[in-house]
């Protein structure tokens, strides 16, 4: 196995162009677990921890290498809320948002936020330079993305929009170190509403019908809020597994969406 320690993005993508089957290593909280348990033996690894550019963040751009513990203090409220629920202090000190996007687990806690804010994933390659892939095109299935074999993730990029309010919540079976059975972000953007969910479909998803229903209402009535929750529950596509059932996930998605909407309205 060979190990390349990239100094900058150019070096990282050059290495990747040479070794299309190489794996990027950011915080290692997903990759090392796979390696330890022997179900994964990468031929070559490109280490990203020393790529300074990936560590940068501002109001509209979050570098792929920003760790969860920094995101706990992010200006984006829902992202900070999500960050606080990721794993444990140890996991948050190492794990990055880029790794979360790269793994693309349906339960990735950063992904509903990315979908809710209509963020794009900025990727880079030697061949095509930089481009921004809309989130809905980036996540294509359970732990599957449209990232090409010679590409890397450089940042999560937010559109230039006025976010009035944003709230995150998740449900799981214990209080710390818990994988989401459902996660949800509701945002008020300009005069419209957005709702995105995790763990209820192969990829993060938006509940567009629920959004549309609300977007006609300037200050939604309790009945409209209830209807919003119902529509969210109707739109999600969860499965039953050992963590929870289809029925529970569907129901909880609607409840979380309704609650977060109320919080957005009162903030």
């Amino acid at each position, binding site marked *: *196995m060979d190990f390349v320690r990239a100094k900058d993005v150019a070096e990282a993508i050059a290495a990747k162009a040479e070794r299309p089957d190489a794996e990027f290593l950011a915080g*290692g909280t997903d990759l090392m677990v796979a390696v330890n348990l022997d179900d994964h033996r990468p031929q070559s690894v490109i280490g990203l921890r020393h790529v300074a550019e990936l560590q940068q963040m501002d109001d509209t751009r979050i570098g792929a290498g920003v760790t969860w513990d920094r995101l706990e203090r992010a200006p984006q409220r829902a992202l900070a809320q999500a960050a606080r629920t990721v794993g444990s202090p140890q996991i948050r000190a190492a794990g990055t948002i880029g790794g979360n996007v790269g793994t693309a687990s349906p339960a990735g806690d950063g992904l509903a936020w990315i979908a809710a804010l209509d963020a794009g994933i900025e990727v880079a390659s030697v061949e095509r330079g930089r481009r921004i892939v809309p989130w809905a095109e980036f996540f294509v299935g359970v732990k599957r993305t449209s990232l090409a074999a010679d590409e890397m993730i450089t940042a999560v990029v937010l559109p230039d929009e006025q976010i009035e309010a944003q709230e995150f919540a998740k449900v799981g079976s214990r209080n710390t170190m818990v994988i989401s059975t459902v996660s949800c972000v509701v945002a008020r953007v300009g005069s419209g509403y957005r709702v995105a969910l995790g763990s209820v479909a192969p990829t993060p998803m938006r509940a567009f019908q629920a959004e549309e229903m609300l977007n006609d209402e300037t200050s939604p009535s309790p009945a409209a809020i209830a209807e919003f929750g119902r529509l969210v529950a109707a739109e999600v596509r969860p499965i039953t597994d050992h963590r929870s059932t289809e029925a529970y996930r569907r129901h909880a998605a609607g*409840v979380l969406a309704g609650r977060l909407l109320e919080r957005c309205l009162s903030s």
Partner: protein
Amino acid sequence: MIRFRVNGKAARAGGSRLRRLSDVLREDLRLTGTKVGCDAGDCGSCSVLVDGVLVNACTVPLGRLEGSEVTTVEGLADGDTLGSLQRSFLHHGAAQCGICTPGMLMAASALLREHPRPSVRQVEDALGGVLCRCTGYRMIVDAVVAASDFEQLAADPPPGKAVGARVVRVDGIPKLTGTDAFGDDAPPPGALLIRVVRSPHHRARFDIGDVEGYVAAHDGVIAVFVAADVPGRNRFGVIPRFVDQPVFAELETRHRGEPVAMVVGDPESISHLDLDRFPIVWHELEPMMSPDDSLAPGAPVLHQGRHQNVLVRGLVQRGALAEAFAGSDAVIEASYSTPSIEHAYIEPEAGHAKRIGDRLEITVTTQTPHLDRTEIAAIMGLDPEAVIIRPSAVGGGFGSKLDLSVQPFLAIAAWHLDRTVRIVYTRPESMMSTTKRHPSQISVRVGATSDGMLTAMEFSGRFDTGAYASWGPTVANRAPVHAGGPYSYQAYRATTVAVHTNQPPSGAFRGFGVPQSAIAQEGIFDELADALGEDRLDFRIKNALTAGRPTLTGQVFESGVGFKECLEVLRPHWDRALYQSAEFDRSHSRRRQGVGVAGMWYGCGNTGLANPSTIKIGVSPAARVVLFQGAVDIGQGANTVMSQICADALGVEIGVIDQIGADTDTTPDAGKTSASRQTFISGNAVFAASLKLRSVLLTMAQASESGRLEFGAGRVLVYDRGEVVEIDLASLDIDDDGLVVVATGSFDPITTGLDENGQGSPYAIYGFGAQMVELVVDLDLGTVELLKITAAHDVGRAVNPTLVEGQIHGGIAQGIGMALMEEYLPGRSENLHDYLIPTFGDVPEIATILIESDDPLGPYGAKGVGEHTLVATAPAILNAIRHAIGVPVRHLPASPGRVLEAIRSR
């Protein structure tokens, strides 16, 4: 080579850049204070600081370390001089088995650096990534909150005052410095590594292919062993009549994870060997995953002679059942079920072994060295005397380390190869192959008269005993003895059956079937009390078993029955909690506060079987008292409790006592650390041995019975009637153990077997308890937030209140897991992120109330307490949920989905 620094010293390591730091620390640098519980980021026991940041060493690749500064637990203490955080841990009882302690200390030290006086909330957040299965976390929180201001540990109590004192753990220091050697912490250099080939199927036949070719084709593989290589009996089992489990399966594997072969080789080459390529062809068979499958007509029989897959049946009955039900004003019946539950100790099974001529020496994490010795001898075709079992420090057992796990592999490989060998299970391996708590399906019917007096109970329990017998017979026998709870009935009938399936073997897990049956019995009590319009606590008090009344097996105790006191002492808490829950409900529409209570009892020791323990105590020429402590301390504190009893019985300070660990060559058999028997039974043996030793010393000094002993440099002084006599130890003969005076003591409580109706005196004493739970249920999400647990336990006498409270906290935490989240599913929850156990955030404030009923048979009045503490927790939680939402949840775990389903069924 990667160069970095560890605890201020230069270090370097080579090999793959993806090697994990935990492995580099433990294997290359021999810093085994950093523990490994999962290799997956889930348990936090490998927590270290890298450049001041707390991380899991198992997710840090070597490639990332160049120039870094790593701090491990070994960097915290200055030799044996503990820092204030470590002293605070010791004082607060924050380390039980100690396997999680290094990780906890690292997380705490990172926190304290930024917040020297942290709040409870800050501690819970900062330490939240480290799992502990023993302590229930609250004492750890207390220790960290108090750490910065912690001054000095209290001095040992004066002679005669050790029992009842909060003496700190006598074996605590190594747990806090990271030097305690658990199963995988001290493998001899050069040891070969063993890896086990296991069935990926629940049930399968198999053909092993070209093993010789396989060995030849793989560098570093030295040998492969299969069933034919077992020198003696390819069967083991904890109960002589039910020895049925093969070391390696012969034709058919009966559960996922069952061993079929082992590969032995040099560690570097084989630790990453892909065992999926082992030459074996599997023929999958239709598995039977529950008793419904294996009891079905025409179902295949897993073990010859066990008709319909029934392992054993149990029965206890007394009184005229039909009449008693007929005379009832209310009768309620319901069915309950509980899933398979994993022990999830943080230390996976591990050990090492070597052959010394015609003897085998095995160092292993175990709860029962002498039983291991007997079983290994049979497997190896050796005399028991040819086998030495040395228990390592045990990082949690809870019953599962009563069964063999790695021992046979170590024995067979060391014997055939005449090389030192080692093994450590991965977390998935540990979970798929070791025993579980019996899944249960229980039906119960109970009646009472309109004045709230119980009349009759009928209980029928079906226990899934999995692929092999293990402790199935014990569960099937203990459950019916306890299933009615500590209450009085006119008539009672309980039947149980243990049924084989293709689940992993079910064995012993804190309570042997009693926690499962208590869920049904205490659950239906609430429904009955409500039907009668009785207060739920009053109903229990009215019907509580008292001294002078017969138990379910017709045994009558004249004293030592403190159950009613446990219930009564909860009264003010109960009234307050009910008031507060009503207040809460008035001001919340979508959340409900509930209060629940449950009672429990538990017989200490084996059920109606001999139960002996022998303890030896001696005096060394240097005037140290040497206690041969055969009662294995798996974190519960036996080492400390036995020292306290010994000190008081001799009338000396605890500081003059040294302990020799439970090694089968030197320590007499104190029996298993199970069934909450050690404090009661081995405690009595220690008491007897100490009195004998004292009497021998007094006689040597020609002193009277009231003489006082004082151990000093090389001599014992005896003070009697104003005179002092010196016993000159140097003038005495020294025996093989290096001792000059020796005494042994034994104890075996008087019990009787059960007759054909299950009547008799199966235990010499019972412990009792009652727990009350306050919680809030979110009516829309079905989530449960625990607020407080109040636990009252009759412990006879608290030899060490801190240790007793530690047992209560730990049992409660496991009860919380059982009630709310734990469910083991073979193939799906074989790790600690799919199998969830409680974390810091899941265990609420716990108030403990110790009732000291002063048992006439216990040493200084003490009873056992280890298993008792878990029994009442889950039923009390379920009862509180029912109180909150108005409908019962009868099937565990009460996950948000299940609770919501119940709410929506209203």
